[in-house]
Structures are given as C-alpha cells and as structure tokens.
C-alpha cells in the first residue's frame, strides 16, 4: 500500500478521536478545527517517521499534544493547556478509551434522531453554527439560563441513550 493511501486510512480512523482530544483542550470549535487542520498537515509530513508497530492513535496524540502546547499562547484562555500533568492524563485517557469512543460515536448518531422540537434548534445553533449559549438566547428569544438548562438536559438525554445502547450491545447473545 502506498504511504499516502496508508496515511489516509489511519487518518480517517483517528480523526474523530483527535478532534475530540483537541476540543477537550480547546473548547472553541473554530480554534480547535484550525488546530486539527494544522495537526493533519504535520502528521502527513511526519508520516515517514511513524513506526507501524505502534498504534497510530498514540503517535498522533503525542504529536497533537505538542502542537497544542506550542499553540497555547494563542489558547491562553483555556486553562487546561497549562496543567501539564493533567494534559498528560487526558492524552493517556484518549488513547486508552479509543475503542469505546468509537462505539459511542456510532450510538450517538442513532440517539440524535430522537431529539426533537426546540432542542434540535438549540443543538443546531450550538453545534452547527458554533454559537455560545448567550448568543443562542438572543437568536431564539429565550433566557440564557433556559438555554443552558435545555442544552444540558439534551446532552444528558443523549448521554443516557448512548449508555443504554452500549449496554445492550455488550450483552452476550
């Protein structure tokens, strides 16, 4: 297999986890997506150095962590970037939980179908348009507190749905 093709395969599998990892350290979607794009370019450039005996995700998280640390001046608002030991533990946890996160992503796609009405609109504004609760409140004419509560409840509902689906999936036949 050509290196470029091999990279594309690895990248396609690792991308959602790396995106989640970056978002854990840089919650702003736009900033996180810019960083992810830089990481993609760096990983592609460094791919000849990758040791195929090691898991790709671990190698990629190591490089991503360095990038986040290098970019932390720009992300000074995100205090987690300054907690080096915590950063290390989050990186390890992402590597450790990688298979579980994949199951969770699959379950989420199904669970999102159950979200209806105003909750869908709030999710769209928060996650598709990237607006923060204060801006969403202005858009939909709701109190900021009400927006926060509704978003939290919707996420709690999704969390519950994901847990149920994963439990069912793990029950032996």
């Amino acid at each position, binding site marked *: 297999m050509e290196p470029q093709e091999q990279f594309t395969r690895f990248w396609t599998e690792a991308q959602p986890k790396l995106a989640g990892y970056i978002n854990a350290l840089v919650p702003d979607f736009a900033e996180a997506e810019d960083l992810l794009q830089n990481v993609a370019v760096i990983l*592609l450039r460094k791919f000849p150095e990758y040791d195929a005996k090691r898991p790709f995700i671990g190698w990629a998280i190591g490089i991503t962590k360095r990038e986040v640390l290098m970019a932390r001046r720009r992300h000074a608002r995100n205090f987690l970037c300054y907690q080096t030991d*915590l950063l290390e533990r989050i990186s390890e946890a992402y590597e450790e939980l990688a298979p579980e996160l994949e199951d969770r992503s699959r379950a*989420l796609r199904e669970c999102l179908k159950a979200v209806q009405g105003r909750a869908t609109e709030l999710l769209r504004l*928060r996650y598709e348009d990237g607006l923060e609760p204060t801006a969403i409140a202005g*858009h939909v004419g709701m109190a900021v507190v009400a927006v926060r509560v509704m978003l939290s409840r919707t996420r709690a509902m999704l969390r519950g749905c994901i847990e149920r689906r994963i439990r069912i999936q793990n029950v032996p036949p």
Partner: protein
Amino acid sequence: MSKEQQLIDSYLDGELTADEEGRLTEWLAAEPEHVHQFVRETHLHRQIREVMLARPYRAYGLSEVASAERKVGQAPMRWLPRQLSQWLGLPWSPTLRWLLAPAVCLALVAGLSFWYFGPTMGKPVLVEVQGTGLSLERADQPLPAVPGTRLQAGDVLRTPENVSAAISFAPERTRITIQPGTELTLASMSRGKRFNLSAGKLDASVARQRPFQPMVLVTLQARARVLGTKFSLLTTSEQTRLEVTEGSVQLSRLSDAVSVKVPAGNYAVVSSNSVPAPLFVNEHRRSSGVPVDMR
C-alpha cells in the same frame, strides 16, 4: 445532574469562571475515572458537532443520488461506464473498466485531501476604524468597537455617517470595508461566512473560500454567493446593487430564488418592487473603466 457535570458543560460551552476552573482542575486531579468521564464528555461534545455539520451534506448527497437514479432508471452502475466511454470517446475494454475503479478511488482521495487540506479560513477581526461612533453590538449588549476586536457570529456593526471600518480575516486574504451609514450582521462563521447587510454599502476582497463554503451576503432583496473575488454591495430598502471588479458573484433574488451570475466589470440590480418578469434582475454590461454610480 451532578455539579461536576455542570462544570464540564460550562467548560465546553466556554463559560467557566476562574473559580469554576479551579474546582474542575481539582476534581480532575482527584481520580483517574474523573478524567475518563471528562474525555467521554468532550468526545460527545465534538461528535454532536461532527454529526450536526454532516447533516446538510448528507441530505444534499442523498438528494443527488436519488436524482441520478431517477435519471438512469434502475441500473446506475451500468449507465456510468457506458456514459463515460461515450464522453471520453474510448472503446470500453475490460482493462479500462478495471482501471476505472482505482482511478475513481484516487480522485476521491485527492478530492478529500483537497477538501481537508484546503485554504485556512481566518477569524473576523475589526482592523480599521476611520472616525468615531462605530457601534458594535453582541447579544444586544454594546461593546467597545476598537481595532483588534475579534468579531463573533451574531455581532452587529453600525457605521454612522463619516465613519468607515474594515474587517480582516487574516491570515486569509479576505477584507471587508464597511462604508458610512451601513448596518452589517455577522450571521454565522461556522460553515462559510454569512453576513446580513441591512442597509448601506460594503466593498469586499474575498480570497478563495473552502469548497461548498462560499461567503454569502444577504440583503433585504437578494443573496450574493461568493467563492473568491472583489466586489461592492449596496443596499437600500428598495433595491440591492452589486458591482463585481474581479471574479464573479452569484446574485439571487430572495423572493423567487431567480439568480444571475455577475462577472467582472459588470453590475446587477435586484429590486423588491413588482417589476415585469423579464426584468427581475437587471444586468447591465458596461465598458471597462467607466465608473458605475452606486448611489
């Protein structure tokens, strides 16, 4: 919901106070399982974003597939090689058929790479303010509008008479100059730049945008769709006028979605008045160098 859950939610929504940051750090440091919970939450947050962003494209893709299937009946895969061979004027040998699959895969990988490693899109920053009295409103609250202010979706900029301002998207070479007497809202920045021009005039120089993420400007009467060009857009309560100096801009009338592609050196007017049908968009060709009165 637990207090820790609320802290994580606030962190992910960008609303954590300094005191809450401290509490979240302590909680994360206390138990390895807490870090695992945090990781699951941030992953959920990211994945909702990914799924929500993919929805419009999936809907578009499905409608395209449905339309292609309608076009060729029940056998689209038989129709494609035959049609390709006709277009390419090739004798469609078995070898060529076998070559088609890797070629399509390669094109797909190249397309995806182009999509992913495409131009970096910058964030809107207010870079220049000429005169005093520029107003910036965020969530109905006035903010100081000074050069260097980072703008967000939902922000409204109003320039009084004798005041102009410029927005830059550096490192991307896109710049919008807002002329006096203009009201501009940054409607959305997440999937392409979207602005609402309620009144006044702007001049824009737009760098190449990401595929399927054009810059879109909406006025009371029209929508201008831009991928990379230089143009001016003027709107009043009666009409919208677009002048293009480089590239081309797709201008659509909002009332019926009829659109016209305005090339460089041309201008077009969209009016909300009930004008005779053939004049729904007046496109006037002009010789280069002749100034256009935008007022």
